């Protein structure tokens, strides 16, 4: 299996600290918290896209204008939960896959950091759209421009995350990637992206169905012609259409994924997930083609079935990752152990640095002192000019008749001058060295 990995594949070392929890527990936390996060991301993105669409339709139809407003109000909550729920999976993936995840983010670092301003701006634009709704009633194109910009940002930002969770799976590509855009071009990024966008639309459809169908939702207060049935039917149709599309995009994702993470377990998990979606789609079909009063009939079952699908797909995602990385993780573990061994060995036998003094014999009696000075002092003291500390000539003027005082100062320097940094203690010097040094220093003439 090792031979499958290309030769130019790096093997970084892992963090040599124990995992804070058993691995299976961390994986469970990762998968569960990720799904919670991604559902709200789906709602945030789906909600923004639908708001834009309704707002454009609302130019001609007042009900759609109001529908846009109603959907846009949900984004405030969904986007805040999306962000805050993202922290736990980020924490878990950084714990489990530090080597892989942080390598990917470093390699696409510029765009990774750009997440902060991009998301902030997208959020501010959704607030702007919501809180200027009535002010901009007379200037709808501006209002549409605001939400369109937010939508464009929201559609772009997931690509940044996707590029990273994708790149982390392929250490063999790390040496070839030059920044975000080159990582974006890895073959399986866009199919995965489409898969995600379709999921967002499907989830948002179900959410709108529930949100506007609630008994205590004052539907009639907002809409003139549109009925609850109309909105529910549209929402359901969206979910159905997006789910059908997944049956085309899903296989495309599988085809473009490198084979290294495939095994029967993965196929089984994915097929189970897809199979459970089928009855849900059938119930939705019955609901939108049946009598209006029966549209709610299977809603609970649809939600349960599709939730199970989501759990299967989320698990499949992890199974692929875990399969794809296992051989490389073994190498990482071996390299880490070897490094720890070498480090320990070096720690126990520290290299003895025999500093070689550069003796300049023309200096005669003070040659050794000059060499010691060159090695230990010259980076801060010059003969006649102030460098970091005062020049030698100044030392001579202070200690000309006080060699012991000079030796004492070198031994235990203090802080004398307010505008100079404190001189460090040179613990590497011996008494003999200090004697030689003092002799050399005091031999310098002004």
């Amino acid at each position, binding site marked *: 299996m090792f031979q499958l*990995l290309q*030769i*130019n*594949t*790096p*093997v*970084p070392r892992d*963090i040599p*600290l*124990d995992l*804070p*929890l058993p691995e299976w527990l961390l994986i469970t936390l990762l998968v569960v918290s990720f799904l919670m996060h991604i559902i709200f991301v789906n709602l945030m993105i789906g909600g923004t896209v639908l708001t834009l669409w309704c707002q454009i339709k609302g130019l001609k139809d007042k009900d759609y204008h109001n529908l846009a407003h109603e959907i846009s109000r949900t984004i*405030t*909550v969904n986007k*805040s*939960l999306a962000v*805050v729920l993202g*922290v*736990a999976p980020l924490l878990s993936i*950084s*714990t489990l896959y*530090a080597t892989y995840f*942080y390598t990917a*983010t*470093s*390699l696409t*670092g*510029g*765009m*990774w950091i750009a*997440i*902060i301003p991009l998301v902030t701006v997208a*959020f501010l634009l959704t*607030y702007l759209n919501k809180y200027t709704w009535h002010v901009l009633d007379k200037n709808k194109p501006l209002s549409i421009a605001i939400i369109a910009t937010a939508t464009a940002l929201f559609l772009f930002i997931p690509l940044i995350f996707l590029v990273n969770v994708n790149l982390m799976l392929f250490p063999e590509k*790390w*040496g070839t990637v030059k920044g*975000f855009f080159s990582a974006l071009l890895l073959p399986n990024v866009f199919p995965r992206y489409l898969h995600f966008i379709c999921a967002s639309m499907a989830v948002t459809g179900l959410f709108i169905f529930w949100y506007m169908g609630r008994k205590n939702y004052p539907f009639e207060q907002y809409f003139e012609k549109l009925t609850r049935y109309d909105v529910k039917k549209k929402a359901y149709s969206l979910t159905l259409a997006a789910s059908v599309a997944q049956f085309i995009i899903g296989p495309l994702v599988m085809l473009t994924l490198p084979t290294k993470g495939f095994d029967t377990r993965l196929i089984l998990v994915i097929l189970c997930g897809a199979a459970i979606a089928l009855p849900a789609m059938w119930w939705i079909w019955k609901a939108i083609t049946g009598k209006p009063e029966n549209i709610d009939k299977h809603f609970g079952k649809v939600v349960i079935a599709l939730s199970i699908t989501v759990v299967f797909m989320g698990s499949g995602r992890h199974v692929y990752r875990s399969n794809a990385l296992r051989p*490389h993780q073994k*190498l990482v573990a*071996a*390299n880490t152990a*070897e*490094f720890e061994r*070498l480090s320990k*060995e*070096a*720690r126990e036998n520290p*290299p003895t640095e025999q500093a070689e003094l550069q003796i300049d014999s023309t200096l005669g009696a003070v040659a050794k002192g000059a060499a010691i000075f060159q*090695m*230990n002092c010259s*980076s801060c003291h010059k003969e006649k000019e102030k*460098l970091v500390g005062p020049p030698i000539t100044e030392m001579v003027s202070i200690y000309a008749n006080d060699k012991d005082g000079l030796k004492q100062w070198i031994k235990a320097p203090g*802080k004398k001058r307010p505008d*100079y*940094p*404190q001189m*460090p*203690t*040179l*613990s590497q010097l011996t008494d003999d060295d200090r004697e030689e040094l003092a002799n050399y220093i005091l031999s310098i003439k002004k």
Partner: protein
Amino acid sequence: MDFPMFHLDWLNDRFLIALIAILHVCINHGLAVGFIPYITRLEQQGVMNSSANEITNKEWDAMVYKMMKVGFIITTTLGAMTGVGIWLSVSVVSPSSIASLIRVFYWAWFTEWLVFVTEVVLILIYFLTWKNSNKSLKAKLRHIKFGWFLSIFSWITMAIIVSILGFMMDPGNWKTHHSLINGFTNPIYIPQLLFRTPTAMLVGGIFGYLLTTIFTKKNTELRARAVKQSSIWMLIWAPLSLAGAIFYYRAMPQAMKDNMSTAVGTLQFAQYYDLLKWIIVGAISTVVIIALAGLWKPKKIRFAMVIIPCLMAFGFLGIFERVREFIRKPYVIGGYMYSNLLREEDYPLYKRDGVLKYATYTTTPEVTETNKVEAGRNVFILTCSRCHTTQGINSIVTVFEKMYGKDKPFDEGSIAVFTKNMHNGRTFMPEFPGNKKELEALAAYIKHLQQTGDVIEGAQNEGVTVNPNQSVEAVVKLIDKQEKAKTDSLAKVQTALNK
């Protein structure tokens, strides 16, 4: 060492983190921890001062709602994203340190996250149900209760994160125990918390004060009342903030001296420390003056009078963060990992064999006569680039020119000698980790930087080159060797037994 080196060669990597983190601290302390209780108190006063036949004073409540709206919009956008942003930026600038910290503090962060989720849910409820709650007194009182819950949760998130910050400066005996309790028991924890709590309240108060001058009309009764209430709030917290600041200010060097005697005592630290004294006095007294003015002539207060004290109060918070950052040097995790992301315990190995040999990504696994400058560049990226740039902020050229004179050609020998010994004199600098050849290569590269004005693109732009010593091929060989050694020794035991 083990990660591609993201590098911002003009802005400086540390500066990126500092920018995001200080912005976040200002929003977190000023617009959440301190602002929410301030707002809740105002909301409560609206109910208390209403006439018998209304739930709350409508004009007052509408003003408080608008103030909260500003807080809500900023905290849920820039506040939330700079919070996540600290993570995102630290993970690219300082991946080894954050990955190590996570392994120790997983539970602290996980708990922090749970509290944080609660905080976000509460802030959504508090703000989004505000108008609906004005329909009945019961709902209004419940709404106010939510405000107080939210205040408590905001404070708890701060209390947890401070332990992680404290830990980074002083892991105490973590090296022997590896437990997160050290974060809470370290000597800086309580002083920090006692400083941050009243200071957050004070900054929240002055920010609210500023908002009242925007949301009320000049010379109105409403403005006079709002200004007065803000003034009282600030005057309550100002002395506590001052006391907390002095306590923290005094605890800082003592804790550092006791534990690792790092940057304290250097000229650079003394400068900050002196400046801090003036900023404490300056910021708190301007805030007190504007608060007293608010009590004395509340109707005369204008936006222009409040903006300066408000900015000073936020600056006050910011400078404390800067000092806190400074005192943990030369470490990123005290006593364990230096700010160049290399572990102290690995230093003997690096000094013996050099850092390049063990770098996962480098174009020069070894220094030779022909690759000296290029190798120096790689050494620079590995050992200096977390804090220094080539020509930008805290540029390595400028640092040396400050010592050796501007525009004077560098002497490679002096730079090498200085770099070898700098950690003795400049205790905020980690010791140079590499071997002699690497030191010389680095000096040659620094001279090259001065001569040519060359710059570095980080791994995020130019990608990485895999070190053949750290490739799959090398590790497979290593494993083979280990396997062979194992079978050999087994065979030896076998033959010994057979004999």
